[in-house]
C-alpha cells in the first residue's frame, strides 16, 4: 500500500506494477479506433483575456519578444519581464502559439461567446448570458475516443456554481452543457474508488453486478414505454449507458495530509479566497487521475464566465478581475478608471502562469507510461476565452501548450499560426491536439474536422514533429 501511495504521489521514483484490474480494463476495450499509446490531455481556461499589447498604449507583457526556439531556462534570460517567463524551466517542453482566433463573433457577451467556443470551435446559439455552443467540446470528443467506454473527461471548476455566467466549458453535444465539479474533496472521493484486497474488490464487483442487472431491467422497462418524448428517451438512454460493471479499477490515493487539506475546505471551496488553492488541488487531482489512468483527458475552468475573483497582486487584495480586465470599476462599459489596471491584469496573468507551472511540476513528478515523465506523455493547454482586456478581442488568443504527447509535438518553440491572410481559426490547434493524443481519420491521415463545419479544416503543421 505504501509503495502504491508513493508511486501515485510521484515520490517513489520507481514505477510499480499496475494492479490486476487495471489490465482487465484495458483488455476489455480493444477496438481499432482506440489509440494504442496512452497520451493524456488537459485544457485549462483562464477568463478575461491576458494583458498583451494591442489595446491603447499598453505594453506587451505576455508573449516573448521573438518567435523561435525555446530551451530550458531561455525565457528567464530573453524575456524576464513577460508573463511566460514563469514557465522558463519548461522552455524545452513548451509550445507557445500566437496568431489564432475564434471562428465566430460573440452574441452580445464577449465572455460567454468565447467561453462557449474556446473548447468547442463551434458556432453559438442564444445570446448574452444564455449563449450555448452548438457542438461538442474537445475534452469530451477525446474522451469518447481514448477513454474506456462510459468514462467521461474530468470536468472541473474553481469557483461558484451559480453565477451570471457559470461553468460553460465542456459540452457533450450541441447545447449539451455539462456540469463541472468544483469541490476538490468530492473529486477525490470519486477518483479514489475502492481500495482493498483483490478478493474484497471482486466481491464488491459481484454484488454491484447483481444490482446493475436489476437496474438495467428497470431502465429497459422505462425505455420500452411507447410514448416517451425524445428528450426523455435521450436522458434515460444516457443513464442506461452509464451503468458499468467493471468499475472497481485501480484505487487512486493521495497522502492523508493532502486529503485532509481538501476536506478542510469541503464546505467553502467556492469562496474567493480559495480560488487559487482549489485550482491547484484540481490540477493535482488531474495529475493523479492521469497517473492511475482513471481518465485520459479533462478540463478546468478557473473563475466564472467573467471571472469576478478578487486576486491578490503585490500582496494587496484587488478589485474584481473582471473589472480590472475592463480597466474600470464597473462590470459594464462605463465607470471610474482603475489605476494601473494593465499592470494588475499582468499580475493576475502571472498567478495563472504559476498555477500552470505547478501543474507541470506535478506531471513531471509522475512517471509516464512510455518511459519518460507523465508530462512527456501529455499535452496540456492553458487557454483563454478572450485575447485581452479591452476590447475583449477574439484575435490572438493566448494558447500555451506543454508536453510533447509522447514525441508527437515539436516542443521548445514559440510560433505564429497566422498566415498572410490573417489569423488562423483555433479549430486547427484543437485538431492538432486531437492528433497528438493519437486520434486519426479512419484512413490514418490526420484528423482535421473538429468544430464547426464552416471552419477551414486542418492542423497546425508547425507544431508537429
Amino acid at each position: 500500500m505504501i509503495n502504491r501511495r508513493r508511486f501515485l504521489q510521484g515520490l517513489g521514483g520507481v514505477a510499480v506494477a499496475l494492479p490486476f484490474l487495471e489490465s482487465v480494463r484495458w483488455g476489455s476495450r480493444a477496438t481499432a479506433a482506440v489509440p494504442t499509446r496512452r497520451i493524456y490531455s488537459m485544457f485549462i481556461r483562464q477568463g478575461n483575456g491576458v494583458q498583451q499589447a494591442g489595446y491603447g498604449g499598453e505594453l506587451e507583457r505576455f508573449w516573448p519578444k521573438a518567435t523561435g526556439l525555446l530551451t530550458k531556462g531561455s525565457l528567464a534570460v530573453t524575456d524576464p519581464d513577460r508573463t511566460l517567463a514563469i514557465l522558463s524551466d519548461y522552455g524545452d517542453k513548451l509550445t507557445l502559439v500566437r496568431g489564432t482566433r475564434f471562428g465566430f463573433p460573440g452574441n452580445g457577451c464577449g465572455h460567454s461567446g468565447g467561453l462557449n467556443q474556446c473548447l468547442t470551435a463551434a458556432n453559438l446559439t442564444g445570446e448574452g448570458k444564455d449563449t450555448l455552443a452548438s457542438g461538442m467540446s474537445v475534452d469530451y470528443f477525446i474522451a469518447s475516443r481514448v477513454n474506456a467506454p462510459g468514462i467521461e473527461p474530468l470536468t472541473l471548476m474553481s469557483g461558484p456554481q451559480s453565477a451570471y455566467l457559470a461553468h460553460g466549458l465542456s459540452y457533450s453535444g450541441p447545447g449539451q452543457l455539462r456540469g463541472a465539479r468544483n469541490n476538490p474533496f468530492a473529486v477525490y472521493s470519486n477518483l479514489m474508488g475502492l481500495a482493498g484486497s483483490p478478493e474484497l474488490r471482486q466481491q464488491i464487483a459481484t454484488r454491484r453486478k447483481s444490482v446493475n442487472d436489476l437496474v438495467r431491467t428497470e431502465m429497459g422497462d422505462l425505455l420500452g414505454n411507447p410514448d416517451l418524448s425524445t428528450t426523455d428517451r435521450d436522458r434515460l438512454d444516457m443513464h442506461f449507458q452509464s451503468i458499468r460493471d467493471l468499475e472497481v479499477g485501480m484505487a487512486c490515493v493521495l497522502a492523508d495530509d493532502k486529503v485532509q487539506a481538501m476536506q478542510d475546505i469541503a464546505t467553502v471551496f467556492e469562496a474567493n479566497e480559495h480560488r487559487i488553492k482549489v485550482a491547484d488541488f484540481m490540477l493535482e487531482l488531474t495529475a493523479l487521475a492521469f497517473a492511475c489512468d482513471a481518465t485520459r483527458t479533462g478540463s478546468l475552468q478557473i473563475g466564472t464566465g467573467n471571472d469576478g475573483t478578487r486576486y491578490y497582486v503585490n500582496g494587496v487584495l484587488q478589485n474584481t478581475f473582471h473589472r480590472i480586465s475592463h480597466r474600470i470599476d464597473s462590470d459594464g462599459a462605463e465607470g471610474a478608471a482603475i489605476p494601473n489596471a494593465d499592470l494588475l491584469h499582468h499580475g493576475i496573468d502571472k498567478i495563472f502562469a504559476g498555477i500552470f507551472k505547478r501543474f507541470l511540476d506535478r506531471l513531471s513528478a509522475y512517471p509516464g507510461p512510455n518511459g519518460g515523465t507523465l508530462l512527456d506523455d501529455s499535452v496540456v493547454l492553458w487557454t483563454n476565452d478572450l485575447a485581452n482586456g479591452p476590447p475583449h478581442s477574439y484575435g490572438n488568443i493566448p494558447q500555451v501548450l506543454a508536453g510533447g504527447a509522447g514525441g508527437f509535438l515539436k516542443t521548445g518553440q514559440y510560433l505564429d499560426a497566422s498566415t498572410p491572410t490573417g489569423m488562423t481559426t483555433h479549430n486547427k490547434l484543437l485538431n492538432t491536439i486531437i492528433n497528438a493524443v493519437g486520434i486519426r481519420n479512419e484512413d490514418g491521415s490526420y484528423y482535421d474536422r473538429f468544430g464547426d463545419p464552416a471552419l477551414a479544416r486542418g492542423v497546425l503543421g508547425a507544431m508537429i514533429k
Partner: protein
Amino acid sequence: MYRLILGIVIAAGVAGAGCGRDTAFEPASAVDRFPRLSHAQWEATVQDLFGLPEPSGLSSTFQPDPQLGRFDNNIARLGVTSGLWQDYQRAAELIAARVATDSTLLAKIVPEPATAQIRDIVTTFGLRAFRRPLKEAEIERYVGLFDGAAAVFPEHAPLTAGVRLMVQGMLQSPFFLYRTELSTAVVEGAMPLDGYEVASRLSYLFWSSMPDRELFAAAQAGELADAEGVRRHASRLFDDPRTREQFRRFHYQAFSIAEYADLDKDPILFPAWRREIGGMMQEEILRFLDGVITADGGVADLLTSTKAYVNADLAKIYDLDGTFGADYQEVELDPATRAGLLTRAGFLARNATLEDPDPIHRGVFINLDVLCRTISAPPDIPDVLERTGNTNRERVDSITGQGTCGEGCHHTVINPIGFAFESFDAVGAYRTSDRGFPVDTAATYKFADGRTITYGNAVELSQQLAKTPEVHGCYTTHLLEFMLGRDVLRADREVLDRLAEQSLAERLSIKELVLTVVSTNTFRARSLDVRSPR
C-alpha cells in the same frame, strides 16, 4: 384589459424601442415526464426515507448540474452522466452499509426481525422508495436480490444482508432517482396523474422530498383524484414549516440572491462595510419574502411592504434608531424612502460598484427579472468612454442617454428604472445628494407596448410596478416554472393569464396563487400532446 395587456406581453414579438423582444414562451412541445431528483431533492428524500437524524451530506459530492434554466429543479439540467451514476452508486452503497450496521435505522425497515417476511419488507419499503406500490414483477426482482445477499455480505445476518442489497439497489433504481409519471388513461380530454403521482408532485413542490404518511394515505384512498382534494392536501402541505424553506429556495433563485454574497465596497467611503454584511442582506431579504408569504401577502406586497428584519449592521444602513444586536428583529422602514424588495439593501448593494450605485445593472435586473422584459444583449464593450457631469446619473446619461449609441435600450428602458434608485448609495443607504449635488430620481419608463409611467422616486416606481400587469405576469411565470420544474410552454398560457390577472385584480396571496396552480390540469394531469414524440 389586464388580459389584453398580458396577452401582448406574453404573445411575443412586440419590440420595445429597438431593444429586444418580449417573449415568455418556448414553442409548444411534448412535456418531459421523468424529472430526475435534483441534488437537494435527493438529499431530503434520503433523509425522510430512512429517517436520518441529519441530511447525509452525500449530495454535496455529486457531479453538479449545469446551470440551464432559472431554477435548479429545471428538468433541462437533470441528466445522469456516467460521473453522476458513479456518485449515485457510491452513495447508495454508503447508505446501505449504514442502514445495515445501525440498529435504529434497520429497525425502521425490519421492525420485527424474528417474524419478518422478505416480501413484506420489499413491498413496504419499496412503496416509500418508489413513491408508489410496486408491481408484482418488481417485488419478485427485489425479493430475488435477498437470495445471493448472504454470500456477498457474509459479515451480516442473511436478512440484514438482503436489506443492504435491496437498499443498494433501490437507491440506484430509476424509480427512485426519477419522478416517473406513467399514467396513460385519458379522462375527459386529459391524462390525469394517478394519486401517487400527484402526491409526489405535491411533496416535491412543497418540501423537495417524498410524500409523508398522510399524503401516501390520501393517494391510496383516492383523495387526490379531484381538484378539491388536491387543493385540500396542498393547503396542509403549504402550512407545514418545511414549505418556508422551499419558498426561500424559490425566491433565492428567482431574484438571484446568491449574488449578494462576497460583495466588496470601498473601505474609505464605507468604513463600516464588512464582507459578512452581504450574507446578512441575503438573510434579510429572504426573511422579508418569507414574511410576506406568512402574512398571506401577494405580489403587490413584495413591492410595497415596509416591513423589514434587521440586525445591528443592517439597522445602520437603514438609519434606524434603537438598539440592535446580532439577531434579526422586525421593524417598519420609513415609507417615504422604502417600499418592497427593490428598495432593500441587498438588491441595491449588489447592483453597485465599489463606490457608486449602478443604475444600469439595477435597471437591467428589474427589466429582466421583475418585468420579464427581454433586452438585447449589449454590443461588445467599446473603448472606454469619456463621461461628463456632476452626478452619477449625469455621468451615466452622458454615455448612454439620448443621442448616444445607448439611446435604444438605455435611454428608454434601462436607465429610467435605474435612475429611480439613485437615492440609494453603493451599500443601499438612503442619500439625498451625490458628490454635493442633489440626486435626481424622477423618470419616465416606456413599456414594450408604448405605455408609459412617470414617477418621482423609487417608492413611487415600486408602487406603480405593484399595479403593473407585466410584474404580476413575470412573478407568476417564474412561480409556475418552479412549481412545474420546467420552462413554461405555450400550452401554459391560459393558466398563466389567469394567474396574472387574479394576482393583480384580486390581489391573490402567494399561497392562493400556488393553490390555484395545483388545482389546474397543468399540475394534476399530463398534457395529451406528450403522446407525440417531439
